[in-house]
């Protein structure tokens, strides 16, 4: 017999939601659906409305920036267990980068309008979710700083 896992269980098995109260997970799961994205397809593009929040279950996603006259620059990749996007959380609810499936990707896509309504109506849930977001944002900010430092660049004024 094939057992079909409910979305609430999928959420609880995802590292981002691990440890959340089951009733909260079930409440959030009401905004979700399973989505498969083919390799090479966009999850979202810069400037589009940020109306989804993705939990990566399988595959790898690239985060990219576009600039005229240059190839798109990949500055991060996200994999199984990661989340994609927080622009849906705060105004102007607009993506600030591109996200593309580097491989076939399976995600749980949570509808941002639905989720925002639930977070507004349930501050405890909102707090629980933000406590999960802040460490992720902190880690990514730290990584961005290290990338900005250009650690492997040739040292200036080398003496050796």
């Amino acid at each position, binding site marked *: 017999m094939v057992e079909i896992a409910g979305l609430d269980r999928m959420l609880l098995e995802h590292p981002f939601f691990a440890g959340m109260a089951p009733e909260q997970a079930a409440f959030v799961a009401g905004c979700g659906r399973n989505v498969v994205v083919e390799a090479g397809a966009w999850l979202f593009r810069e400037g589009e409305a940020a109306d989804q929040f993705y939990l990566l279950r399988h595959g790898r996603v690239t985060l990219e920036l576009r600039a005229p006259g240059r190839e798109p620059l990949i500055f*991060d990749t996200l994999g199984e267990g990661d989340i994609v996007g927080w622009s849906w959380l705060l105004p102007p609810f607009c993506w600030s980068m591109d996200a593309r499936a580097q491989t076939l990707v399976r995600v749980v896509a949570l509808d941002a309008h639905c989720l925002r309504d639930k977070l507004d109506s349930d501050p405890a849930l909102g707090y629980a979710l933000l406590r999960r977001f802040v460490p992720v944002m902190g880690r990514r900010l730290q990584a961005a700083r290290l990338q900005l430092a250009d650690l492997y660049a040739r040292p200036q004024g*080398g003496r050796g």
Partner: protein
Amino acid sequence: MNATPGGADPALWLPEPWRIERVRRELSDTFTLELQPTAGGAPLRFLPGQFNMLYAFGLGEVPISISGDPEADGPLVHTIRAVGPVTEAMRRLVPGDVLGVRGPFGSCWPVSGAEAEGCDLVIVAGGVGLAPLRPAILHVLRHRQRFGQVCIFYGARTPADILYRHELRRWRGQFDLLVDVTVDRATQDWAGRVGVVPRLVEGGGYDPQHTLALVCGPEIMMRHTARALLARGVRRERIHVSMERNMKCAVGLCGHCQFGPHFVCRDGPVFRFDVIEALMTVDGL
């Protein structure tokens, strides 16, 4: 280490002439020299992590880690990044040219002692920091059965800056190694990971309680990697880093490479992280 206390052995001060047998261009600014002693004789015995002082005649001497196989009878191997006048001059050398060699000097990666026996090994390299770790990796591969999980995590600036690309690919094809590579930025032709190397450490693949970690790369990268290892539960005294300072005499006399109470040439370049952690954030040290 063959340095006697106070560097009293005159042989330690005299560069021996070694002839370049082969030059390999690795990256735009990085190259590998394979050397043989002009006088013939036995290969230079060294431990993984140790360095030699290489002398470009008339220009100067620089400390360069040994990157060859410590148990092979082949040539002496040095991978060098051209960062200044001496290494720039070395980049222009061709087979048949001669360099002066003093060494080997310094401490080593603890891969051959009891400390490593049966442990998981996490080897983390950034940029040209893979070169000083290569002898340790080759040692581990020769004695693979002595270790548990072996993870090699490597970070480079871009895909074009990946050192020892073919060797990494070969290691990645082994069933008993976990090899993961990331770059700081890439374009569409790169199908691998993008992001900083400490994030690879966060991904696991090893038992933190029974892990020995070897880390080599830019100092900021080593600090952040060590923090990621600590966050995973690896013990401070089980993390080893390789420091780089302005080494001149290589025998702990001149003080150019003084790092707090340590001389990097004599007490390092490989240090236990808990021994030097506090010094790594001291301004100007």
